[in-house]
């Protein structure tokens, strides 16, 4: 992690810096500003009766931090976690949360002009989780936004309905 962060210092300001990772063959990325560190998988204590995508809690230097499995969150195929699996610790409104991913690749520098708005549905993930799609050479990178990552399906569904309703009202006017 230290190496990853170290590289970022000299870059021009307007470039976005993202931590890129793989999830079922697709390339994703999150804003480096939200990332605290990247860990190998520590032992995870399961949390009974919690949301299904919550894998459990881990001990990060004395702090108890919830961890969620991004594959489960995005309704991807469940797979055994290999050697390359990592936990990306991110800071969101609710506090620190760990995200389990297949592997972490690098820190990317993206020009904002190379980022396009999100399509409506992509790779089974909900549009709420995506802030855009970045193009780097012939790579397509799905850039995540983490604000709603802990919302339940019901909450998201409700927001959808409200949004659709608002659109309908706007169209009828």
């Amino acid at each position, binding site marked *: 992690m230290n190496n990853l962060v170290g590289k970022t210092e000299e870059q021009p300001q307007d470039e976005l810096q993202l931590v890129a990772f793989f999830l079922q063959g697709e390339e994703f990325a999150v804003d480096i500003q939200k990332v605290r560190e990247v860990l190998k998988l520590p032992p995870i204590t399961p*949390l009974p009766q919690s949301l299904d995508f919550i894998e459990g*809690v881990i001990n990060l230097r004395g702090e*108890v931090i919830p961890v969620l499995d991004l594959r489960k969150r995005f309704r991807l195929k469940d797979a055994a976690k290999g050697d390359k699996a990592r936990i990306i610790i991110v800071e969101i409104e609710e506090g620190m949360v760990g995200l389990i991913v297949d592997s972490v690749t690098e820190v990317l520098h993206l020009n904002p002009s190379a980022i396009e708005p999100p399509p409506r549905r992509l790779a089974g993930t909900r549009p709420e989780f995506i802030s855009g799609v970045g193009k780097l050479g012939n790579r397509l990178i799905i850039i995540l936004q983490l604000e709603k990552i802990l919302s339940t399906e019901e909450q998201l569904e409700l927001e959808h309905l409200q949004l659709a309703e608002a659109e309908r009202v706007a169209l009828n006017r």
Partner: protein
Amino acid sequence: MDTSEYKDLFLAEAREYLQGLNIALLQLESDPANREVLQEMFRAAHSLKGMSATMGYQQLANLTHQMENVLDFLRQGSLRAKRDVANILFESLDLLELLLGRLDEPAACLEQVDRVVGKLRAACDGSMEEAGLVGSAADGDTLLLDEFEKEMLRAGCAGGERARHLEVVLDASCLLKSVRAYMVFKLLEKFGHIVKAVPGTQELEEEQFEDRFQLVILTQTADETIRAELLQIAEVADVLVRDVPEMVAPSAGLEPAKVRKVELVSETAISQEEVNGERRNIRRAAEKTIRVETDKLDKLINLVGELVVNRTRVVELGRIDVAAELVSAVEQLDRITTDLQSAVMKLRMVPIKQVFDRFPRMVRDLSQEKGKKVNLEIRGEETELDRSIVNQIGDPLVHLLRNSVDHGIEPPGVRVQSGKPEEGTIILEARHEGSYVLIRVSDDGRGISAGEMLKKAVEKGLLSSAEAQRISEEEALRLIFRNGFSTAEQVTDISGRGVGMDAVKTVIESMNGSVEIKSSPGEGSRFYVRLPLTLAIIKALLVEVAGEIYAIPIESIRENLYVAPQDIKTIRGEKVINVRSEVLPLIYLGEMLGMKTDSSEEILSVVVVEAADRKTGLVVDVLLGQQEIVIKSLSRAVEGIRGVAGATVLGNGRVALILDVSSLI
């Protein structure tokens, strides 16, 4: 000046002063002649005024200034602490509290402040009329010349000089007050010499005065010349030149315009002395205590918690290794860590006084409102408890006390008829008992009758009449803590605020505490609240379920049992066991938590837990043993999981969940 960073500090200190004022005022009410208390109140009000003005809280400054005036009159004896005055002061304190809560809205409560300030002014005016003469009474205090100074003045006067009393007023915005004072001194030396300065030269140098100081000089120069010359100095707002009272027979007719001035003079002169004394006190206190942000403290405690956990691990390793030196080093580490832990835990401890202090006022208001006479006796207020418990125990105690005033203590007439003293007594007592704190709330009121409790319970359908027959007296009294039970005939403003006794019990149990009641009709009731000393570290039993380790707080465990399969019976489809003729429902913890378990064990390990008066057997896979654990809250992202109270980190670095027994069973 940007003062926002001092706001929290200001608030904390202001609240302390306010609390002190409340207590002192109560004391004053019962002992109006107590000058020491008055002195203390005056100082507190004065400090509050100063602080508020510095921070730019005009409303607060205005209010406290008027309070200070009233207290000053009380202190001088020109106003008596009658009930109406006390009530005005209580009203001011309430308003102060309100203002402290709304510091960010400077315009809030303007009207109320005006109204209360008006009342305070009126109280002062009344006192002035009572005292008859304002000027002379106040004047006497302004200057106290010792014999040496008087001798100097007499000698000077004999030599053709005149003794003059100067009061120099500086601009309120003056920044370098000591420099201005120095310039005044320098200038006056041209005209004569300075016999006395109030406050003294030392204090003037240290800027320990507000906007004015007084001097006595010997001079031959005319008053007007001196005045004009002094006014040339920048930031000197006004100079008053007067006769020195000791040297001249007091002139009978001071001009009306000056009367007010004189009154102010006396105030500043006296408060100056007091402020100096008080500053010394504060300095002395400052050496003994420092203020630390609770966040920092919590972090330290958290780290020590980690250390304690790791110590356990090292100690265990030390037992395996045979090297004698390592063993003794580990023992040493063990001792030091234990000491460190207890020292750090003490940092979290605060006296329960913080909570108790607000009760005398509450009981006073309440009993007045209810037309009852109640004496609240507080004992053991120095007893120390964990800060987080002190923060939470307030509301349950408020309810118990309200209950005692409202339902326990009878009206004076009834009391006299039943041969009791007219004034009822409520005793609030705290004391240490092992690793617990016991808080007792007892009253000598009408008490609670077990028979009536049972009748009510049956009426409300909480009990069948058959059950009511079997129930013991103790159990009957405990019905008061049941949900949906209230003994009061009508819901009153006081005890009917939605917080029932069941809520009291719930809050106390959530802190791993317990509450008991004892009562005898006609003689009064006693409530016993038992609380752990700390919430941060608890003793817990570690158990294994489906390969995961869980911690069960010892406080809720009654016993551990091994149960053979044939001893498990089924009643209405639910599995139960019979323990000493008590039928306990069984809960398979693994199933309950939704884990896959293969309970192929022949003999079941059962932990008997109790919460909310219900005992239940929890079936676990393995009993691992007892350990001190540090409680960590679960992240907001996953909080509120039923059955889980928090988490802890075990010696091997893994997280174990702490079970919340009351929500499990």
